[in-house]
C-alpha cells in the first residue's frame, strides 16, 4: 500500500510541534482554559463594547443623580433619561461605562508595557548570555544597578519633568519590568549555547546574529511566554499603584486602578464604587495568573510532574 505508507511517512515527518503539544496540554487544564476565555471576554468588552451606541459616555456628569444603585433608571434635571446598569458615582457618571473605559487603559498598559519589556528584556538578556565574559558581566551589572533604583521615585521624577502623560506610564513601566525578563533569558541562553545544535550551527559557519536570533531566542520562548503572562498582571498592578498615587491617568479619565482608589475613598458611604471595579480587576488578575500557571505547565511538562 504505497499510499498508506506515504501517509504514515508524512505523519511521522510532521510530528507534533512544541506549540501543538502545549496547546493540547493546556486544553486539559480547565482552570487555565476558563481563564483564557475570561481574559478574551474582558478584552473584548473593554475595547469593543464602548463603541456600541447607547453605552453612555463615561465622563458625562449628572451631579443630581449621584450614588444611585445598580439597575436604576432616572431623569436628570436637564431632562435626560439615564439608565445605570451598575449605578452611578458621586458625580452621577455611569459606573459600568467607566469600568469599561478604565479597562481599556489598564489592559492597554498591561499589554503594551509588557511588550516593551519583552522586547528589551529578551534582546538584552540573549546578547548578554551569548557573548559572555566581560561583556556579560558589565551588562548584568547595569541590570543590577537599575534594579537598585527605586521605581516610584523614578516615575515621580519623570512625571515632574515631562508632565503627567499616559505614554510615559507605558515607557516607565516597560523600562522597569524588562530587568527580570533579561535575567531569565540570559540564564536560558547560557545553558543553551553549550548544546550540540548550537555547536552544529557554529560549525556550519552561521553568523553570530543568525545563531542568536534563529536558534537561541526561539528556544527560550517557553519560559518567556510564561513570564510574559505573569508580567501583564504585575504591570497592571503597577499601573494601579501609580493611579493610586495620582500619577497615572488624569481625571476625568479612569483606569481600574484609579476607579479603585476613588472607590476606596468613598468606601464608607458608597461601597459599590469600590466593589465593582475591584471585582473586575481582581478577576482579570486571577485569570491572567492562572493562565500563566497553565502555560508554564503546558510548555514545560517536566516541572508540572513534580
Amino acid at each position, binding site marked *: 500500500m504505497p499510499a498508506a505508507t506515504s501517509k504514515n511517512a508524512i505523519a511521522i515527518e510532521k510530528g507534533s510541534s512544541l506549540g501543538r503539544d502545549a496547546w493540547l496540554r493546556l486544553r486539559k487544564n480547565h482552570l487555565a482554559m476558563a481563564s483564557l476565555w475570561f481574559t478574551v471576554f474582558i478584552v473584548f468588552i473593554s475595547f469593543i463594547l464602548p463603541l456600541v451606541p447607547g453605552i453612555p459616555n463615561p465622563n*458625562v456628569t449628572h451631579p443630581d443623580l449621584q450614588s444611585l444603585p445598580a439597575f436604576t433608571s432616572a431623569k436628570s434635571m436637564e431632562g435626560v433619561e439615564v439608565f445605570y446598569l451598575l449605578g452611578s458615582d458621586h458625580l452621577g457618571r455611569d459606573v459600568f461605562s467607566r469600568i469599561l473605559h478604565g479597562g481599556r487603559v489598564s489592559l492597554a498598559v498591561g499589554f503594551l508595557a509588557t511588550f516593551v519589556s519583552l522586547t528589551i528584556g529578551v534582546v538584552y538578556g540573549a546578547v548578554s548570555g551569548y557573548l559572555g565574559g566581560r561583556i556579560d558581566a558589565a551588562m548584568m551589572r547595569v541590570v543590577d544597578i537599575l534594579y537598585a533604583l527605586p521605581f516610584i521615585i523614578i516615575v515621580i521624577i519623570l512625571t515632574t519633568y515631562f508632565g503627567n502623560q499616559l505614554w510615559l506610564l507605558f515607557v516607565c513601566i516597560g523600562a522597569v519590568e524588562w530587568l527580570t525578563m533579561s535575567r531569565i533569558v540570559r540564564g536560558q541562553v547560557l545553558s543553551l549555547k553549550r548544546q550540540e545544535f548550537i555547536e552544529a550551527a557554529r560549525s556550519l559557519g552561521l553568523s553570530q546574529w543568525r545563531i542568536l536570533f534563529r536558534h537561541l531566542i526561539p528556544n527560550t520562548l517557553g519560559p518567556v511566554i510564561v513570564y510574559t503572562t505573569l508580567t501583564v498582571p504585575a504591570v497592571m498592578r503597577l499601573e494601579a499603584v501609580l493611579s493610586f498615587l495620582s500619577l497615572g491617568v488624569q481625571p476625568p479619565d479612569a483606569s481600574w486602578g484609579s476607579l479603585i482608589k476613588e472607590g476606596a475613598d468613598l468606601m464608607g458611604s458608597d461601597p459599590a464604587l469600590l466593589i465593582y471595579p475591584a471585582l473586575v480587576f481582581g478577576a482579570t488578575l486571577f485569570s491572567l495568573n492562572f493562565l500563566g500557571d497553565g502555560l508554564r505547565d503546558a510548555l514545560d511538562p517536566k516541572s508540572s510532574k513534580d
Partner: protein
Amino acid sequence: MLRPRTDRTGQGRLLRLTLSSLLLLILLPLASCRQESRVERATREKILLLGNGAEPKALDPHLVSSVGDANILRALFEGLVINHPESDTLHEPGVAERWEPNADFSEWRFFLRTNAKWSNGDPVTAHDFTYAYHRILHPEMAAPYASMLYFLKNAEAFNRGEIKDFAEVGVKAVGDHELVCTLDNPAPFFPDVVKHTTWLPVHRGTIEKFGKMTDNYTEWQKPGNHVGNGPFQLAEWRINAHVKARPNPHYWDAANVKLKGIDFYPIESPFTEEKAFRNGLIHLSYSMPESLIESYRKQENSPLRIETYNGSYFYRCNVTQSPTDNADFRRALAWAIDREVIVKYVTRGGQTPAYAFTPPSEEGYHPPQVVGYDLEKARDYLKKAGYTSGKDVPEFVIIINTLEAHKNIAMAIQDMWKKNLGIEKVRIENQEWKVYQQTVLDMRYDVARAGWIGDYVDPQTFLGMWVTKDSNNNTGWSNADYDRLLRESSRLSDPAARLAKLAEAEAVLLDGMPVLPLYWYTRVYLLHPDVRNWHPLLLDNHPYKHIGLVPSEKGGPQ
C-alpha cells in the same frame, strides 16, 4: 483526579488559616474598644490633638502663607493684638496691653506689657517687632507675604528695594515698650491687621545665631533652637508625622493657659483624617470628605460642624496667554458654570454659590453681583471671543492641587463647559501642593484652582491682591482703573464711602474677569465634644490659650 492528597489537606489548612485570621481581624477592633483611645488619654493629659492639613512649610512667621502653618504659629508666637475666642471683630490684648490711634487712624501707638517674655526668658521688646518687620520686608528675604505690611509708610518701596534705609519705614520703637506704626493711609481696622501671622515678632538673638537676618530655612526653626513668645513652645517636629507644642513657662499669661500641649498632625487626605477622627486619634479635623457629610448630619450629637468661613473658592485665569487672554472667552467660561449644582451636589457643605469675588460676610459690604449662570450670554461671549463653536477652542488645562474635592469640582466644571459651550479639549492636571503653588507663582498654567481665606474681616484682604503685580495676583491681570479705585479707597477714612469705592473696584475686577468665582467657603470639620471654648469664627483663628479639654459625659460620639 490525579492531584495528590497532601495537596488537598494543604488547601484545607490554608482555608482554616485564612478563616481564623479573618476572625481575628473582626475581633481585634472589638477587643480594642475597651481600651482608652488616644483622644481620651490626651483629654486626660490636656493635650489637644489637631488635624492640620499639609505638612508645614516652615515655622518661621516670615516664610509661611498657608492656613495650616498659621495655625501652628499662633501657638508658638503672640502678636501685638490677638484673636478673641468668640468674635473676629473683637480684640484681645496680646503683647500690647493697650493701643490708641490718632484722629484719622493713620498712626497707631502700641503700649507693650513689661512682663512679656520669650520662651528662653528674654523680655519681648518693641525692638523685636521692628526687627521682625525689617526682616520680612527686606528684599533679600523675599518673604511671600510681605505685602501684608504694606500698610506701613514706605514699606512697599523698601520691600521693592527702592528705599535702602529701614529707618524711613513707618515703624518705630520708642523706648523698649512702645511701638509706633505710621501708616500710608488711614486704616480703622488696623488692630485686625496686626493679628495676622506676618506681624508676629521674632527673636533676633536666635535668628542671628544660625545665620544672617535674611537667611531662609536656617536651623533656628528646629526644636531646641526655636524661640517664640506664644503660650506654647516647639517641643518636637517630625516631618510628615507631627509638630508638638508644649507650654512656654515664660509666657506672661501662663497661669491662664488651660492646655498642657498641642499636637499638630499633617493629614492631607480628608478621608484619612475622618478615619483618624472616628478612631479617636484626633480631637479636631482640618477638613471633612463631602461624601460623608450627609451621614454625619443624621447622627445624634453629631461632631460635624459647618460654619461660615471668610473665604472664596475660584479659578485663576492666566491672562497672558491664549486662550484665556481673551476677556470675552473668560466671561463665557464664567457664565457657563452652574454654581448651584456645584455647591448642592459636589461640595455639599452648605457653601454659597459665588456671583462675585468677596464673600458677603464682610460687614456693610455689598459685592456687586455681576456673574451668573446664563447659557445665552455664555454662548454670546464665546462668539464675541471669536469662536463659532466650542470645538474651535484650543486645548487648555485646569491645574488643581491633589485633593478629591478639587478634582470633583474640576470634573464637574469640565463637563459643564463641554455640555454648555461644546468645549471639548479641557484637560485636568493634578499637582502636589508645593509643586502647584510654584506653578501658579510662575504662571505656567491656563486655568488654576484657587482659594483665598481673608486675613482679616474687610474686603481689602480680598481685593488688594488683584492690584497690578501684587505677589498674590499671579494672573498677569492689570487694570489702571482698578488700581486707581483701590488707591482712592485706601485714602478714605469714612467707612461707608470706602466700602462703596471697593465695591466699584470689584465691579471692574468682575468685568475683567481674571478669576472665575465659584463659591464662598464654609468650614466643614469634625469637633470632639471634649474640646471647650471652640467657637465658630469667620477667620477660624482660634486663640489656643482659651481652649480647654474636659472629658465629656459617657454616651457621646466615639
